[in-house]
């Protein structure tokens, strides 16, 4: 057994006998496939608001989710009782939940430890005194207020989590992963004659406290403060269609929404994606090469194995404008006759069934000089920083928020504009990309929500220009 899998198994379960019994119990009840997913998650968070550290919390969660597949139906049950009897009881309940197509039988499952990728962070957050975590908050608060008297409210948030998972299934797969994440965020509110404006900055890594050797929280806070203050004189955003330039790293959420979700095989299979039946077709400007890559060390959406135990890989979804592949989980891979999952089967916790999810989704750099992209735009909007977004995968219509944006007038970035959404149609926007910068940056850490489940995702992009997007402002 690979060392880390052995360790995690011992830490979470003691030994594998309960897992093996649960899988056998599922098979006896007619399962064609069964899976035990064990998870242990410990989290610490601290919040400073209104000038004081006001909420220091710790939380702990441990349990197992057991999935039993019979034909095309899945039964699922979860338990916090990790004893062999607890796991078997959950497996039996999951098996009973779905109709059986035929009788079960005795089958031996020999678990093979295939992978155990989780690496210990350089500075495990659970070994760092809470005092040091709390001190970061105060430093951010000070920095945000010092330079900008208009900033009257600062909230700073520190969070770390350690998630250990173990997955075993009746195909013999046995995998583990240890996922440690550390996050820091600052939100500022500035007050001026025209009301209040907000600025937020966040940074997150799949990794430990070493993050703060690289990231200066005071500088992060200052950027959030500057964003809030700069918007005090912001004009209402324009309303209507015009060219939009999005800054590198402003947030690849544009691509996450414009086509990422539409390339998830579960939505494609149900006919709920505007990108269904498009493999091999030109779906974007040839400047577009889009990648989903769960292996990028340190990035927010990085995982060693997905929540079905499959190693993540680098998946090229669109190459030079041509749709090359969809993302899949175990279920979709099996139905579509793929050799294996693309490593995109993820779930929020042991209480949830896995589904197809993105990891780190980003656009590769292109040939254009970012400064020239702006200079060659006569009139438009420059979006420096994006908020979240949302997509209707059936129509392909998607929105994303701008939290720092400016007008472009005669090739120059000029007046700041107020927050709002932009709306576009995925396939149209992808075709309407006429410039891709030779720069690149990953965006801030994100949480992607789908069918009520949130998972951490990363995104990234170079500077990009879309010929026409609709800006959801109020100004004529």
């Amino acid at each position: 057994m690979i060392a880390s899998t052995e360790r995690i198994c011992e830490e979470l379960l003691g030994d594998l006998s309960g897992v093996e019994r649960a899988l056998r119990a599922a098979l006896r009840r007619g399962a064609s496939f069964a899976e035990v997913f064990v998870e242990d998650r410990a989290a610490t968070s601290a919040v400073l608001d209104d000038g004081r550290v006001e909420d220091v919390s710790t939380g702990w969660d441990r349990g197992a989710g057991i999935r039993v597949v019979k034909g095309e139906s899945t039964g699922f049950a979860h338990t916090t009782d990790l004893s062999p009897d607890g796991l078997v009881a959950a497996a039996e309940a999951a098996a009973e939940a779905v109709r059986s197509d035929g009788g079960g039988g005795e089958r031996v499952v020999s678990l093979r430890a295939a992978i155990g990728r989780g690496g210990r962070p350089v500075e495990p957050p659970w070994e760092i005194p809470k005092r040091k975590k709390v001190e970061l908050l105060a430093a951010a608060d000070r920095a945000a207020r010092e330079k900008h008297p208009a900033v009257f409210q600062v909230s700073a948030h520190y969070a770390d989590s350690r998630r250990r998972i173990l997955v075993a299934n009746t195909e013999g797969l046995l995998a583990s992963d240890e996922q440690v994440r550390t996050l820091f965020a600052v939100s500022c509110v500035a007050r001026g004659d025209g009301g209040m404006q907000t600025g937020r900055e966040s940074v997150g890594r799949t990794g430990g406290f070493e993050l703060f050797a690289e990231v200066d929280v005071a500088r992060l806070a200052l950027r959030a403060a500057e964003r809030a203050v700069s918007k005090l004189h912001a004009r209402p955003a324009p309303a209507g269609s015009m060219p939009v330039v999005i800054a590198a790293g402003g947030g690849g959420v544009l691509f996450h929404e414009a086509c990422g979700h539409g390339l998830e095989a579960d939505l494609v299979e149900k006919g709920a994606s505007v990108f269904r039946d498009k493999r091999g077709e030109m779906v974007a400007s040839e400047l577009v090469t889009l990648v989903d890559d769960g292996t990028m060390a340190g990035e927010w959406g990085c995982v060693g194995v997905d929540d079905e135990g499959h190693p993540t890989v680098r998946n090229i979804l669109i190459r030079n404008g041509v749709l090359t592949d969809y993302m899949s989980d175990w279920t979709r891979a099996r139905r579509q006759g793929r050799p294996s999952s693309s490593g995109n089967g993820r779930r929020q916790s042991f209480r949830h069934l896995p589904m197809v999810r993105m990891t780190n989704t980003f656009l590769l750099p292109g040939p254009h000089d970012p400064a020239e992209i702006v200079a060659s735009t006569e009139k438009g909007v420059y979006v420096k920083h994006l908020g979240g977004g949302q997509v209707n995968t059936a129509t392909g219509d998607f929105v994303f928020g701008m939290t720092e944006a400016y007008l472009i007038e005669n090739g120059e970035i000029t007046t700041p504009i107020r927050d709002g959404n932009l709306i576009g149609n995925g396939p149209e926007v992808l075709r309407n990309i006429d410039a891709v910068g030779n720069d690149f940056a990953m965006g801030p850490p994100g949480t992607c929500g789908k069918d009520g489940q949130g998972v951490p995702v990363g995104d990234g992009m170079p500077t990009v220009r879309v010929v026409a997007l609709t800006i959801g402002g109020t100004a004529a």
Partner: protein
Amino acid sequence: MSTSRPVDLADLVGRIASRARDGELVEVFASRSDGVSVIAHEGEVESFTISHGEAIGVRVVAGGREGFASAGTLDDDVVATLLDEARENATFAEIDPHAGVAEPDGFEPPALCLFDEAVPRTGRHDKIRLALDLESATKSAHPAICGVRQATYGDHWGEAAVANSLGVQAAGSVSSCHIGVAAMASDGTMTTIASSVDAGRDPSKLDVEKVARDAAHRAARILGAAPVPTRRLPVVFEPRKTAVLVGLVLDMLSGEMVTKGRSPFTDRLDHTIASEALTIVDDPTDPDSLGADTHDGEGLACRRNLLVDRGRLVGFLHNSTTARRFGCRSNACALRGARSLPGVGAHAPHVEPGEGDLESLISSLDEGFLVQSLVGLHSGVNPISGDFSVGAEGLLIRDGSVAEPVREVTLASTLQRVLMDVMAVGADLEYLPDGSVVPTVVIGEMTLAGR
């Protein structure tokens, strides 16, 4: 999937709260729930999920310092460590003179029955049947329906208890169930999608046919939708969309936002903030609302709170901490789960009815926009500045009737303006699955941005 005998929650939280030391406040919240969820697809059960959840959270306030610890299990050995962990966490917090727990206030809880045996008692096959029937009913509800993205049945039943060292204690049981479907319609060139839900406390009373027809009708009526040129016009929000708007407004009336100066309404108590047509109440004592509750997250008895009275701001939503900060008593608006400190929010927002229904309100407009769906609320609405800009689908209104469908447009204004621009409030109150009780509302003017 609890294998050991279930713990008595009221007893458990009371025991831990009673361990408070001198000068220390302790509050314990615990919950346990069961539920199932069924997803139907192509006439089969795609998945059947059996859920069991339990959780406990302990809050300690000592010398004005607050700490919190929680766990997703009620196992004795874990529970035993939480009090000390919360105490340790408190040592890292700074002194907040307003930190504390709820004080007993003598209010009597409303007499409500929130638990219906029908939910746990309904058999697995009947629950599966609801999801399967919903899927097939949706497919046949309209000729344009080409598929169903998801048809679901879900329910939960459970109990919660809270106690604190000042003597507040409360416990209760709840159950609820719902069905929901996302219908897809096609005209050969485009596919549209629309959803509908129904919720209640008795699975046999869920209206499969109505949900199927509603989702199918909505998906079909926006087939052929296209962007239209940018314009300003009146916007009609059906009850389910009114609930979304009201939810955004209530975020701005949260004591948490108000006492930290993050709400544009912080200094506007007793001022006019909305059109006279608008009265908003949070009324968890209404037994017909699915947001009805006997106690809030800190154990105080729920009560009816008038917030906006014919346009005048008369109240905020408070838990005990924001109330102390504001200089008033909590009005029992603490919302929480066991895994986090109590927040602030409305249980069951009511908008007082006016006159007319959706049809008559539409017929009063020469030009307008009927909203069908809103997207990007989390990215396009800023409750601090009030900036409001969201993606929308819907139907144009021309000469008092619904006209062509529209998509890929945005609606924008500020929430402050939206409130002042409430032009009409209908009499067609709907009891919605999210607990709100709201009618159709017409906003006098918003910017619709398109081509």
